């Protein structure tokens, strides 16, 4: 930002500087305020409750010492780590290969594979878990393939792998989407083979995204209790322990203490991310040419095989869940019917819940994407206010590590506090929207950051030297270039809002009950068919929204992304 500027036009520069200061500094402070209110205060509220010495609350430091010293806790911690590392070891290589296949090879029907791979994002996490039980449980269709039933370690691993795969894929797709063809031309003219080109160009440019994806998968797995609750059997993990403490015994303190442990991975990844940032150069310069993969039969055949296997597994699981919503009475009356879709006697009046969910999802997607993308831009592309940037980054890392259940409880404690003027929001749709944005902030922000980091800082320098205000540059250059990533964020927030349960369960009021909460209630009441039916409805809605956004983005891409085509091709 310390570029030599022409001193002659001082007056207009002053106007630009003022607008920019307002945009940069004002934006950051506003963001900080929102993050403090939506993330930090609720968490502080719950930790404060957790560590207070009152009987029936946390039990203070003595309880913490007793918990952390207990053998049971070490055993739970070991289990959680084993599950999270196994899931990451399976998901990250697969997601990388999958993303590579979609971005850097010439396999056919890419749009189809991409659509299928994102399916698990579109339904509540209970859906794959229900499907796994129907597939590999004691009565499962494919029970014969396994020596023991699915319940336990491998059940959790499989369920979490399906649940986290699209999350990792989103980050890696974004990282592999941009590449400078000139580097590959240079490599091949210097005689480097494809492996050499990969290890010296592609890998260095994407390893930070791999690390980010690893952190995301690890923390999503370690904080999720939805999958272990359904297919975990007797295999216990920490997140489940927090759930049991809060829901089973109303021991908020114990729950808060365990959550404190679950925050550690996110804080560690924050430290490593900051370290990697200093090492990583910027990959995409303003003079970059878009990389187009060259034809290669063998490479494409291998990648197509991988993609087909992954898609087959995902389709099997989702298909099984949809099928189970149509079965009259599993497993003794397999005739098909639509009776589960009537939602006549279900909690919260099924269709009201569905309409509420759609409203909330639209609100979350529109408001969230604007806030998050602007925020990511300000953090990435401005070097001033270092401390502010660091605090913003840290705050936006935290939600990933906080189990939704705990975030929701924190919202109750904070927004329902005596004397809090924000209490007017309590029980309203607005608070659900805020909570959902906060809950899914990290992934969305990571996607935005990954896309933004690939843009060379010289774009900003160019804007400055043209004396264009930064905000105008942001709207005219950055937003159009990052449009695909921005649409990804909108879609991600929409579908997450459609499927979220854990944080919302404490925050809905009779008027604002949500579809995913209805799923949980129906499953709880023994109406598994109804739960599967509502999940399928959510899946269809999210899928339609995704297709609409895809169509919109194709139209927009044609207009604003012409630069992605090689000049020679025109």
């Amino acid at each position, binding site marked *: 930002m310390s570029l030599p500027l022409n001193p002659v036009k001082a007056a207009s520069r002053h106007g630009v500087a003022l607008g920019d200061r307002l945009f940069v500094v004002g934006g950051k402070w506003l963001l900080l305020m929102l993050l403090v209110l939506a993330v930090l205060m609720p968490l502080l509220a719950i930790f404060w409750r957790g560590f207070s010495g009152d009987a029936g609350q946390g039990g203070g430091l003595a309880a913490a010492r007793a918990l952390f010293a207990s053998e049971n806790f070490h055993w739970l911690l070991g289990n959680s780590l084993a599950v999270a590392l196994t899931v990451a070891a399976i998901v990250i290589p697969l997601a990388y290969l999958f993303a590579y296949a979609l971005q850097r090879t010439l396999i056919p029907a890419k749009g189809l594979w991409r659509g299928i791979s994102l399916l698990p994002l579109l339904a509540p996490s209970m859906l794959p878990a229900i499907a796994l039980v129907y597939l590999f449980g004691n009565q499962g269709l494919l029970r014969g393939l396994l020596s023991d039933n699915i319940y336990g370690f491998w059940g959790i691993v499989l369920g979490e792998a399906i649940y986290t795969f699209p999350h990792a894929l989103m980050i890696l797709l974004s990282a592999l989407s941009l590449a400078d063809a000139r580097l590959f031309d240079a490599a091949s003219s210097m005689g480097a083979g494809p492996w050499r080109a990969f290890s010296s160009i592609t890998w260095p440019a994407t390893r930070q995204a791999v690390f980010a994806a690893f952190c995301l998968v690890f923390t999503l797995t370690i904080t999720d209790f939805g999958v272990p609750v359904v297919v975990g059997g007797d295999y216990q993990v920490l997140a489940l322990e927090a759930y049991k403490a809060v829901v089973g015994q109303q021991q908020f303190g114990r729950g808060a203490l365990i959550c404190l442990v679950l925050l550690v991975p996110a804080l560690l990844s924050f430290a490593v991310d900051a370290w990697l940032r200093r090492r990583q150069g910027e990959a995409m310069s303003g003079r970059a040419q878009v990389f187009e993969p060259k034809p290669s039969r063998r490479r494409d055949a291998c990648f197509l095989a991988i993609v087909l296997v992954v898609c087959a597994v995902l389709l099997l699981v989702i298909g099984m869940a949809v099928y189970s919503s149509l079965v009259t009475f599993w497993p003794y009356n397999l005739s098909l019917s639509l009776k589960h879709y009537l939602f006549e006697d279900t909690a919260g009046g099924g269709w009201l819940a569905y309409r509420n969910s759609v409203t909330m999802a639209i609100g979350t997607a529109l408001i969230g994407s604007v806030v998050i993308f602007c925020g990511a831009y300000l953090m990435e592309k401005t070097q001033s206010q270092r401390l502010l940037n660091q605090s913003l980054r840290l705050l936006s890392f935290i939600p990933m590590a906080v189990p939704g259940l705990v975030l929701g409880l924190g919202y109750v*404690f904070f927004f329902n506090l005596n004397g809090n003027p924000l209490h007017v929001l309590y029980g309203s749709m607005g608070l659900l929207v805020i909570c959902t944005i906060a809950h899914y902030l990290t992934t969305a922000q990571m996607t935005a950051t990954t896309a933004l980091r690939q843009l060379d800082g010289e774009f900003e320098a160019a804007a400055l030297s043209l004396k264009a205000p930064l905000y105008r540059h942001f709207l005219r250059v950055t937003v159009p270039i990052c449009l695909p990533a921005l649409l990804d964020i909108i879609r991600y927030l929409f579908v997450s809002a459609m499927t979220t349960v854990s944080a919302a369960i404490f925050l809905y009021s009779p008027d604002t009950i949500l579809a995913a909460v209805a799923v949980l209630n129906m499953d709880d009441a023994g109406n*598994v068919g109804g739960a599967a039916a509502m999940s399928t409805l959510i899946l269809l809605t999210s899928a339609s929204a995704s297709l609409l956004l895809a169509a919109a983005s194709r139209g927009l891409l044609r207009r604003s992304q012409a630069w992605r085509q090689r000049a020679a091709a025109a």
Partner: protein
Amino acid sequence: MFKHLALAAAVSAVFSLQASAAGTQLTVYTALEAEQLKTYKQAFEKANPDIEIKWVRDSTGIITAKLLAEKDRPQADAVWGLAASSLAVLDQHGMLEAYAPKDLGKISANYRDAANPPAWVGMDVWAATICFNTIEAEKQGLSKPVSWQDLTKPEYKGKIVMPNPASSGTGFLDVSAWLQTFGEPQGWAYMDALHQNIGQYVHSGSKPCKLAAAGEFPIGISFEYPAVQLKRQGAPLDIVLPKEGLGWEIEATAVIKGTPKADAAKRLADFSASPAAMALYKENFAVLAAPGIAKPQTELPADYEQRLIKNDFAWASKHRDEILAEWRKRYDGKSEKVAQQ
């Protein structure tokens, strides 16, 4: 970015406008089964046309956690249909307004809070039940158990599911009932033996019966409501009431202390204890808080109420933490089954 807050404010304004348009709106927290809500609400609103019920329904654990979390500024006006043990916890936190409903005299002494006026008043009773899948039993050659002791037979190894007492009130009810019926050392010895046969401990009280109904595990230790409902839906279930006696729990109603709508909340408490309400409960439950109204359910034996054990709730709630700690030590942590995986 101001949109963020502006929209939130606008939306909440809309909701509060809606709220003031109707008569008195009573926010009622409940863990009643979803299918009961509509009839109960209609009956109450018919008797009290100026009051409208707004339900917040969730499982017992979530609703209790929610009520406790909102302790500083309660959102609920009343609770209609929550386990008495949960209401006792709320009472310990001083969250309940003691109130004697008009028909309190008609309620059995053991189905209401002992204090006068009572903090909570019972509605109906649910009790422990074994759900036994007849189709799977035949396939796997299992004999039908008739007692709790039968469940420790080696033939049931890995075939039984029960709720984890640390996450489910029904699970705790089972454990506390065994300790009370068999005596403490024998109760733990019984659970040691039972543990050998448990396929898994789950986290909800109705789930074992659902799993049994779907044949996922042939035997589920649950309670009678889901058993009856699933049987009516056509599940191949036998409902077994073990001969040693059944642990049980009361579903009850209470008024939240400090609610600005105390009058309406008390009218709800009046209604909940009235014969008209008991007539609703009897469709779903075989044992009611007011004697002489219940009708036997076809799926349950006529002497059902006599099979309930003498349940000492005060003892159970006093020792809850110790019992759970002992249970975890024995069966949670490094149990054999887990170590193998």
